[in-house]
C-alpha cells in the first residue's frame, strides 16, 4: 500500500507538467487494479495501512475520479490559473483520501479524514467562481469540524478503554445505557454529517455549487463516501445501541430524502439540483447502513460507487455547459439538444444512471437497499417508494428542461464536445454500466 502513497507524494514533484500528472494517475489506477485482484481478505498490510476489499473499492474509486478530475479541469491549464498549485492541492487531497481508506488504525483514519477537508477548502476558495464560495467553505469546514471533534473524543475513550485503536481490536460497547448512547452519537455524528443526512445537509448544496468542477467532482465522487466508509468501520462497535436507535437515522434520512427530492424539482441551478440529488441518494445509503444487515451494507457500498461515478459525471457535464454558456441556470441552459446534440447522449446516459436504470450498478444497489430497509420495517415502503419515484422525476426534469424545447435566444453556437470531454464522460459512464457483469469487484463482502 505504501507504494501508492509514495507514488502520490512523488507526483507532487512533477506538477509543472500537467500531462505527466494526468497520465500517471491513470497508470496508478491500472497498477492498483492489478494489485487488488486477489483472494486475500486483507492485504497490503504494514505501517498501520492495509485494506480489505471495501478499502480497495473506495481507493480505486478515489484514484479513478481524481484522474478524471485532472482531465476535466483543462480550463485551469488553458487560462493559466495557477495550474501547478491546483495539481498540488489535488494530489494532497488524493493522499489524504488514500490514507483514509487504507488506514487500519482509527486515529490515522480520523487524522486523514480531517485533513481531506483542507485541500477541499483550498480548492473551493482558490478556484471557485463566485464570492459566495467563502460562505460555502465556512459552512463545509465548520459543519464537518463541529461534528467530528466528538468523534475524536470517542476514539480516545476507546483507546483508554481497550488499549488499542487498531481496527478489529477495539472492544465493542456492549451495554445500552445512556453513556453508551452518548458515545454512539458522538462517534457516528461525524459520518452522518459527512454523508450527509437530511437535517445536517446544508453544507452540501453550498459547497458543491461554489466549488470548481474539480471540487464538485471530488466532493460528490469520493468525499461523501468517506462518511459511508466511516460508518461501516465504526457502526459495529455499538451493536445494542444501534439496534435501539436505528429507527431515528432511517426515518430522518428517508423522509429527508423525500423532502430533498421535492426541493430538487424546484431548483433552477443545475449544480444545485445534482447536489440535492446527492443528499437523497446518500439518505438511502445511510438507512441501508444503519439497518445493519448484509443486504444493506452491500447495497450501500454499491450505491456509493455508482453514485460517485454518476454524480461526478453530471457535475462534469454541468461544467462543460457552464464553460460554453457562462451560466448554470436552467433558464439559460435549455434546449441544449439544439446546440450540443453530441453532449445530449451523455446527458441522457448519466441521467438515467442517476435514476437507477438498468444495467447500471445504481440499480443493483438501490434494489439491495430497498430489500434491506423494507425487510427492516414494512412502513418504510412508502418513503422509499416516494424516494425512488421522485429521483426519477427530478432527473427527468433536469434532462428535459436542459435538453428539450426551444433554446434561449441569446445563445450562439458552441462546440458540441471535444474529444477530451467525451473521453472523460465515457470513462465515467463505462465503469458505471459495465461493472454489473463483475459485481464481485464492488461488493464489500460475501
Amino acid at each position: 500500500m505504501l507504494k501508492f502513497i509514495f507514488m502520490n507524494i512523488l507526483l507532487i514533484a512533477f506538477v509543472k507538467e500537467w500531462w505527466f500528472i494526468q497520465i500517471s494517475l491513470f497508470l496508478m489506477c491500472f497498477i492498483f487494479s492489478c494489485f487488488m485482484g486477489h483472494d486475500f481478505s486483507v492485504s497490503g498490510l504494514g505501517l498501520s495501512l492495509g485494506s480489505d476489499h471495501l478499502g480497495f473499492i473506495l481507493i480505486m474509486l478515489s484514484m479513478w475520479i481524481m484522474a478524471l478530475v485532472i482531465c476535466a479541469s483543462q480550463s485551469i491549464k488553458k487560462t493559466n490559473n495557477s495550474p501547478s498549485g491546483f495539481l498540488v492541492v489535488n494530489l494532497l487531497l488524493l493522499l489524504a483520501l488514500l490514507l483514509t481508506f487504507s488506514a487500519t488504525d482509527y486515529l490515522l483514519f480520523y487524522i486523514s479524514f480531517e485533513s481531506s477537508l483542507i485541500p477541499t477548502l483550498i480548492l473551493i476558495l482558490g478556484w471557485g467562481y463566485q464570492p459566495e464560495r467563502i460562505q460555502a467553505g465556512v459552512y463545509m469546514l465548520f459543519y464537518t469540524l463541529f461534528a467530528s471533534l466528538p468523534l475524536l473524543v470517542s476514539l480516545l475513550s476507546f483507546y483508554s478503554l481497550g488499549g488499542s485503536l487498531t481496527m478489529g481490536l477495539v472492544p465493542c460497547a456492549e451495554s445500552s445505557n445512556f453513556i453508551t448512547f452518548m458515545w454512539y452519537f458522538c462517534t457516528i455524528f461525524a459520518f452522518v454529517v459527512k454523508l450527509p443526512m437530511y437535517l445536517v445537509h446544508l453544507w452540501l448544496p453550498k459547497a458543491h455549487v461554489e466549488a470548481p468542477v474539480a471540487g464538485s467532482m471530488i466532493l460528490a465522487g469520493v468525499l461523501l463516501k468517506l462518511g459511508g466508509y466511516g460508518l461501516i468501520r465504526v457502526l459495529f462497535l455499538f451493536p445494542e445501541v444501534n439496534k435501539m436507535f436505528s429507527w431515528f437515522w432511517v426515518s430522518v434520512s428517508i423522509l429527508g430524502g423525500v423532502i430533498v427530492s421535492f426541493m430538487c424539482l424546484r431548483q433552477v441551478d443545475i449544480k444545485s439540483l445534482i447536489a440535492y440529488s446527492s443528499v437523497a441518494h446518500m439518505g438511502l445509503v445511510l438507512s441501508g447502513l444503519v439497518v445493519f444487515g448484509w443486504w444493506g451494507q452491500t447495497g450501500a457500498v454499491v450505491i456509493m460507487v455508482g453514485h460517485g461515478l454518476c454524480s461526478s459525471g453530471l457535475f462534469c457535464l454541468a461544467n462543460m455547459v457552464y464553460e460554453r454558456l457562462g451560466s448554470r441556470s436552467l433558464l439559460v441552459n435549455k434546449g441544449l439538444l439544439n446546440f450540443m446534440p453530441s453532449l445530449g447522449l451523455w446527458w441522457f446516459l448519466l441521467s438515467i444512471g442517476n435514476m437507477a436504470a438498468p444495467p447500471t450498478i445504481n440499480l443493483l444497489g438501490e434494489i439491495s437497499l430497498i430489500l434491506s430497509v423494507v425487510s427492516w420495517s414494512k412502513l418504510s415502503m412508502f418513503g422509499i417508494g416516494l424516494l425512488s419515484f421522485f429521483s426519477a422525476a427530478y432527473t427527468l426534469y433536469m434532462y428535459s428542461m436542459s435538453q428539450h424545447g426551444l433554446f434561449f435566444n441569446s445563445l450562439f453556437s458552441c462546440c458540441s464536445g471535444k474529444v477530451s470531454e467525451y473521453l472523460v464522460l465515457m470513462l465515467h459512464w463505462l465503469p458505471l454500466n459495465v461493472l454489473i457483469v463483475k459485481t464481485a469487484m464492488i461488493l464489500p463482502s460475501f
Partner: protein
Amino acid sequence: MFGPPGVSHLPQVCFHSCSAKMATITRLGRTALRLNNVLFRPRVLRIATISTSKKNKDTITISDAVVDHGKTKTEEATVETKKNWISWGFSYESEVKDNTLMHLTFFFGVTLCLVTTGFVWTYLPDFRMMDWAQREGYLELRRREELGLPLIDPNLIAIDKIEMPDDEELGNTEIII
C-alpha cells in the same frame, strides 16, 4: 505483400529480409510523423489557381507564384501553409502536443485502465473463492441427500454437542430468540 507506399494501414512485422524490416520501420516512422510534421512542411509552396475569371476584382487574389517562407515576398498575398487544426481538447497551443497527449491519454486511460484491467478482472481465477464456495455447497448437498439428512438443518450444530448452563447459572439473563 506490404501494399503500395502511402497507404496508411498498420505495418506488419516481417522476418523475411533486412530490407523488408527497413521498409517496415520507415512506414512506422511515416505514420508516426504524419501529424507531427513540423519538420516536413515544404519550404516552398507552388499554388496554381483554377479560376478563369479576370483578376481585376476587389477580392484578394493569390497569384500564380512561388511563395517562399523565409523571405517576406509581397506579391498579392502570402499564403500560410499552416492548416487550420481543430484541437482534440488536450492542448490548444500546439498541435503536436495535443496529438501526442491524445494518444497517451487514450492509451493509459482506455487501453490500460479499461481494456487490460477489464481483461484481468474477467479472467481472475476464482476471485474471492466464489466458485470454490459453490462447489463446496453442491458437494455438501450431495452428501446430505445420500445420507438422508435435511438439506438445510434448523440446528447448525447437533444439539447434543451444546452444553447449556443450568437455570441457576442463568439467573436473570435476558433470553433473546
